């Protein structure tokens, strides 16, 4: 699935960097009805995890009150060059991953 990741390509050691992620997902709340009165079943991303060189640095539990196409922004300290891995897990077996690299000087 399409995900937009914004991580600085380069950073100085010790810098606080912002990580921004956006993924495409309907985030169907499970509270809406169709015109003929049927309940539209819930279909959301329930969990997001970010790992920095294998160590978890940020995790989020999401609920239907998160807008469609979940956007998340958070911070971390640039410690070493390496890779950020992102994982979204949701209803109906939904799973999606993305990654981004950073060079720390």
């Amino acid at each position, binding site marked *: 699935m399409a995900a937009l990741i914004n991580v600085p390509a380069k950073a100085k050691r010790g810098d*606080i*960097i912002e990580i921004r992620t956006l993924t495409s997902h309907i985030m169907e*709340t499970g*509270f*809406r*009805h*169709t*015109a003929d009165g049927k309940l*539209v079943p819930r279909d959301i991303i329930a969990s997001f995890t970010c790992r*920095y060189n294998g*160590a*978890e*640095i*940020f*995790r*989020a*539990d*999401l*609920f*239907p*009150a*998160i*807008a*469609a196409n*979940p*956007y*998340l*922004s*958070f*911070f*971390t*300290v640039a*410690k070493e060059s390496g890779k950020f891995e992102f994982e979204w897990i949701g209803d109906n077996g939904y799973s999606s991953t993305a990654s981004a690299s950073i060079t720390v000087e």
Partner: protein
Amino acid sequence: MPTTRRRFLSLAGGVTVAGTIPVITLRPLQATPAMLTTAIRNVVGEAQIRTGRVKLDIPPLVENGNTVPMTVSVASPMTAADYVKSIHVFNEKNPQPNIGNFYLTPSAGRAQVSTRIRLADTQKVVAIARLSDDTFWQVAADVVVTLAACTEEMN
């Protein structure tokens, strides 16, 4: 409780259908402040919640409740000895009181999280931070919503 248009229509609809289908279930369309309190207690337990240290940036007036930008930041040095463990965001009147739980580590550097949320009504949004010493700090913000999210009909 005041008679709202929604409540009236759902009751009126129920009466009309009652002739043909015997069982009608009316599910509450809104979380109540009691549900908000319960959801908060599920996270903090019996601990005391203090006001302050947490900052909630959210527009006071939004036109479209389907996507409301929101930033929570906590005044914390974010060191191994003193950091923010988690940030929890709740609402008062969506069908469900939870919005999101965000778990941080000391390596975050800055205790700040942004996302976009849905608001089904004009209501209060509450952000609670759990610090590494297991104290809880909260802040609340009132948001006026002109177009509600979550429960509208699907076309």
